[in-house]
């Protein structure tokens, strides 16, 4: 395929190398091309498709806002909840969005630490996605409470009543975890933006735009004495975000794991949730990046290699999730607690909501299996479809965990089946609008790809580019391989 030819062509330009790899930026583009390409997106007129997407998402956002106003002014009753299903779509959506919010930080942070250089062209968009997803997520726990005007009770502020919060409550942990996660993600994202903002600043004429970009660029001068601290800081944030990502969804899972409800009370939840989050997150990144790539023609920056890699991760995490599903059953059976076992039977086999379980299982476990084949991993339509499945599947997963469990609580006399109302549905759909609106605005005003970082991974960015001696460095830098890992085969080649 195209990628490989170009790659070899590029490789031919230098002396033959061992361990052929496609570079992350194709066709050996110069720095200025990269700047123009990416900044072009912002500076040129937006394609018609952008408007096609933007207008409806603004409308949806409006609807969402209306739903929340209605909710607050009238009562939580406008949703479908009932005893014993006191949480339903609200918390389902919260966990769903927060899950999506994981891939972003994960892609930038974890891949950065593991020196996966291929992250550079997707991390910016992914991080942005994180922020917007977390915004959507935050809406639900905030507004699902009965007395929104009293939520400040959650903040540990000294008060004349001398009342304090209950730090044993997982819900309070959530408050801290989610807000921290959001703040740190913002910082991480913004820090990455600074050099690119400088680029934009220097490209545009004096005026409001320049003022704004300039303001946020903080007077960046690309001085190396800055770069060296900057890189440390960036690395530190990455190092901080990684455990944070893991912690956030673990804490979310504590809401359920620490309860006594059969079907919730499981030690497997934290890893299971985190895997699920990464799973769903990556799927969402792809669902956003593939169209963006097409619309803005970023084929040279977002290469099949990227998509291929992400597909692999989806396959992996998807399988982990599948394992978790089956493990739950095994534990229920092995734990010999009839209540537990019955809960799972009711969930999957003969309960009122088995449909959701089937949807969950097929979307999350079966669909990704096609990614065992490289052809399909890089076949965009397939990838798109699978990712869509996964997005849906992850929502169903949360629904299964939350609603179907509560529908079949401990006392059969109180069992009831949940039915959503129009408000439930529209609110949820609305959040998608809110999410899309934010993302489109981001595309419109900020560099969708980290310019400086991409430049950093081009061959010519290497001070030793073209030096015949010691190819290792380029290999390492560009491909992100530990020297150790590739010396052996190289050595072999040399002796041959």
């Amino acid at each position, binding site marked *: 395929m195209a990628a490989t030819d170009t790659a070899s062509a590029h490789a031919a330009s230098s002396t033959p190398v061992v361990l052929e790899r496609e570079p992350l930026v194709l066709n050996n583009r110069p720095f200025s091309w990269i700047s123009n390409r990416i900044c072009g997106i912002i500076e040129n007129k937006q394609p018609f498709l952008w408007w096609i997407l933007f207008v409806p998402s603004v409308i949806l956002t409006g609807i969402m806002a209306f739903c929340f106003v209605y909710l607050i002014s009238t009562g939580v009753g406008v949703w479908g909840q009932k005893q014993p299903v006191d949480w339903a779509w609200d918390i389902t959506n919260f966990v769903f969005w927060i899950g999506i919010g994981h891939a972003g930080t994960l892609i930038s942070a974890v891949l950065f630490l593991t020196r996966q250089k291929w992250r550079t062209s997707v991390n910016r968009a992914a991080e942005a996605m994180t922020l917007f997803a977390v915004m959507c997520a935050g809406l639900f726990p905030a507004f699902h409470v009965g007395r929104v005007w009293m939520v400040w009770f959650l903040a540990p502020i*000294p*008060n*004349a*009543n*001398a*009342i304090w919060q209950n730090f044993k409550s997982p819900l309070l942990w959530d408050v801290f975890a989610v807000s921290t996660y959001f703040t740190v993600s913002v910082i991480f994202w913004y820090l990455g933006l600074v050099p690119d903002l400088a680029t934009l600043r220097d490209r545009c004429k*004096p005026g409001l735009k*320049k*003022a704004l970009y*300039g303001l946020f660029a903080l*007077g960046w001068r690309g001085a190396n004495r800055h770069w060296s601290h900057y890189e440390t800081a960036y690395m530190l944030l990455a190092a901080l975000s990684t455990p944070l990502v893991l912690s956030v969804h673990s804490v979310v899972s504590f809401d359920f794991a620490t309860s006594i409800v059969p079907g919730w009370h499981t030690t497997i939840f934290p890893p299971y949730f985190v895997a699920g989050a990464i799973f769903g997150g990556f799927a969402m990144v792809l669902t956003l990046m593939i169209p963006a790539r097409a619309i803005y023609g970023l084929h040279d920056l977002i290469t099949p290699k990227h998509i291929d890699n992400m597909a692999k991760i989806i396959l992996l995490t998807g399988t982990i999730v599948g394992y978790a599903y089956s493990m739950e059953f095994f534990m229920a059976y092995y734990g010999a607690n009839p209540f537990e076992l019955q809960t799972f039977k009711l969930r999957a086999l003969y309960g009122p909501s088995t449909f959701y379980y089937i949807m969950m299982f097929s979307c999350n476990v079966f669909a990704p299996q096609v990614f065992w084949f490289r052809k399909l991993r890089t076949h965009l339509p397939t990838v798109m479809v699978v990712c869509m499945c996964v997005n849906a599947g992850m929502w169903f997963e949360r629904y299964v965990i939350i609603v179907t469990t509560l529908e079949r609580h401990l006392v059969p006399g109180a069992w009831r089946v949940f039915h959503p109302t129009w408000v439930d549905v529209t609110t949820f759909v609305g959040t998608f609008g809110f999410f899309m609106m934010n993302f489109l605005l981001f595309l419109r005003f900020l560099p969708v790809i980290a310019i400086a970082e991409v430049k950093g991974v081009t061959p010519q960015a290497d001070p030793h580019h073209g030096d015949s001696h010691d190819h290792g460095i380029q290999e390492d830098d560009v491909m992100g391989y530990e020297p150790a890992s590739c010396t052996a085969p190289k050595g072999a080649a040399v002796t041959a």
Partner: protein
Amino acid sequence: MGNFFPRWTNWLPLKLAIAVVFIVIGISAGFAYYFTPKYTRVGYQPTQPVPFSHKIHAGQLGMDCRFCHSFAETSSHSNVPTNQVCFNCHGAGKGQIKLNSPHLEPVRKAAETGEPIHWVKIHKAPDFVYFNHSAHLNRGISCVSCHGKVNEMEVVFHHESQSMGWCLDCHRNPEEKLRPLSEITNLNWKPADVNREVFYKGLLDGLKKEGANEADALRDIAQTIPQAPKEAAPVSLTDLVALAKTKVGDSVTQQEVGLQLKKHWLVQPPDTCTGCHR
């Protein structure tokens, strides 16, 4: 191209940072002072329809609070007296005092028409707070602890903050407010007024009445005296008093009284929700 941003902008961040710090501190301080019951309630002194002077009645004349607020000891509410109560002294054919004083016009009117006097409420617990006067008065908490020295107020005003925190302080260490039941309505009472001899005798008799033998009772009391040694075991009341003298000093202290009463009356104020919220 020249600098787009003027030079002064370079100092902006620092200035802003400093400003923000001060503003934040200022705001929180302001809130803490102006928006807490200490400020919003304390000192509230509305004009009442009848220029009734607690200073004269409770202070100069030394009338007992319960003369008018007769149900305070038996009910949750401390009632405001009916006109009949006023007329016990001011009424024709009764006390005849200030029969036709214009100040009493509203009272007389009320009596005729039956339209009650609209007293303005000063101490107002929130709707979800269930305060009970009898529970406090019967267990050694004086009026003064919550209402201040009403006997010195021409017109009554809000004396304590009466915030939940304020309640909890006392509920957690009642010894700071407890006093002998005889002194409940004595707003001028000071611990120093207590005659140690009499006080301890009272305790002792109380314990004995409940079936403790003298020695145990003495030890029990002695060991409750502040800074008293664990093994303190006075043989007689005089011993006991002597011990207290040495440990506490010549004049009785609130802590001394409080601790004893708390222990020997088994004073255990509720400090969980249901005590006040239902």
